[in-house]
């Protein structure tokens, strides 16, 4: 089991629940999602509860996160976009904390399952569609007709733009999921080399230094990827929300 790099992604039922033939079991994935939300919420609540005018260390971490997302959203979608701030901030915190939780040994990485990231991406695209049509009505469809296209090419361009739009949730979710999955598998494979080489005696143990160094380096890289992917997810969410706010500007 220890050397199987896929084992870490296995979902196990903790509390089996079945409603009307559907499986609603509380799994390790659910548990870590709950833990993610609880940890993110508790961190923000506890660090800002002192409400110091001069923030302490942890309070300034919370405030920096807030400022970071707020300026990102304002840059991408304008000040009108700030109405989506709670949405984008929650998404960012969820993805970030879930990614970082995955870095603990023996923890389950929620974002390494495509169904989770795809649900998040569908939430984003659903918000874009609902808000776009609610705000602009059919004018939202102008999003798919770029200006300055000859009339002959319009049907082709619109078809390509529609497919491109529909591919957004897929690429958004696949990117996050693939990064987390690939990173964790690589980490596990290199760590597995250490144990299997170490079992070969003195020469093996000396050789095991190489994969060990690699594992250490990869762990650092994985922390970077965890931040980077949460950031990319939030940036792209902002860009897509911008389309909903200003379909043609």
């Amino acid at each position: 089991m220890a050397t199987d790099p896929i084992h870490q992604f296995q979902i196990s039922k903790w509390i089996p629940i079945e409603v009307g033939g559907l499986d609603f079991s509380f799994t390790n994935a659910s548990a870590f999602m709950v833990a993610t939300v609880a940890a993110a919420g508790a961190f923000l609540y506890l660090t800002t509860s002192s409400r110091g005018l001069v923030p302490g260390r942890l309070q300034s971490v919370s405030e920096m996160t807030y400022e970071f997302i707020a300026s990102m959203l304002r840059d991408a979608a304008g000040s009108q976009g700030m109405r989506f701030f709670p949405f984008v901030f929650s998404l960012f915190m969820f993805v970030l904390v879930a990614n970082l939780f995955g870095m603990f040994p023996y923890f389950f990485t929620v974002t390494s399952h495509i169904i989770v990231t795809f649900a998040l991406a569908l939430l984003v695209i659903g918000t874009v569609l609902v808000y776009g049509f609610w705000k602009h009505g059919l004018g939202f469809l102008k999003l798919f007709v770029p200006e300055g296209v000859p009339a002959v090419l319009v049907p082709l361009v619109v078809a390509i733009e529609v497919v491109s739009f529909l591919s957004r949730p897929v690429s958004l979710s696949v990117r996050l999921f693939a990064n987390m999955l690939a990173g964790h598998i690589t980490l596990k494979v290199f760590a597995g080399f250490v144990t299997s080489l170490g079992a070969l005696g003195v020469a093996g143990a000396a050789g095991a230094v190489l994969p060990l160094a690699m594992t250490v380096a990869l762990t650092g890289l994985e922390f970077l990827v965890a931040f980077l992917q949460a950031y990319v997810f939030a940036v792209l969410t902002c860009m897509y929300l911008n389309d909903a706010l200003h379909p043609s500007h």
Partner: protein
Amino acid sequence: MADRDKPGDLDGRRRTLEAALAARKPAEPESDERAKTGGAGGFANALRLSSEFIAGIVVGAALGWFIDEMAGTSPWGLIIFLLLGFGAGILNVLRSAGQVADFGATPPKKGDDEDGKD
């Protein structure tokens, strides 16, 4: 259509395109640098671009297959939408690399390049 065929117009359009591309170039030095340093930045870029491309093709193929299933037009829906998905994938890649205008962005106004009348 008629005024677009003038030879001077094409040159003008090419010049404005070059100007627009040149104006776009310095906006991306940071991401270029990140790609050059290799490691995490380049890896993230590669994954980003490839996922954009693959997503376009996959969504096109899925749409085509779905339309075929619904309308019984197999294999034409799959063929046409796979090609459209390929186009969308290329568009996605160019767009996320900053080479093509974003969704709904208007081209810079130049006066001689007004469209939509034909």
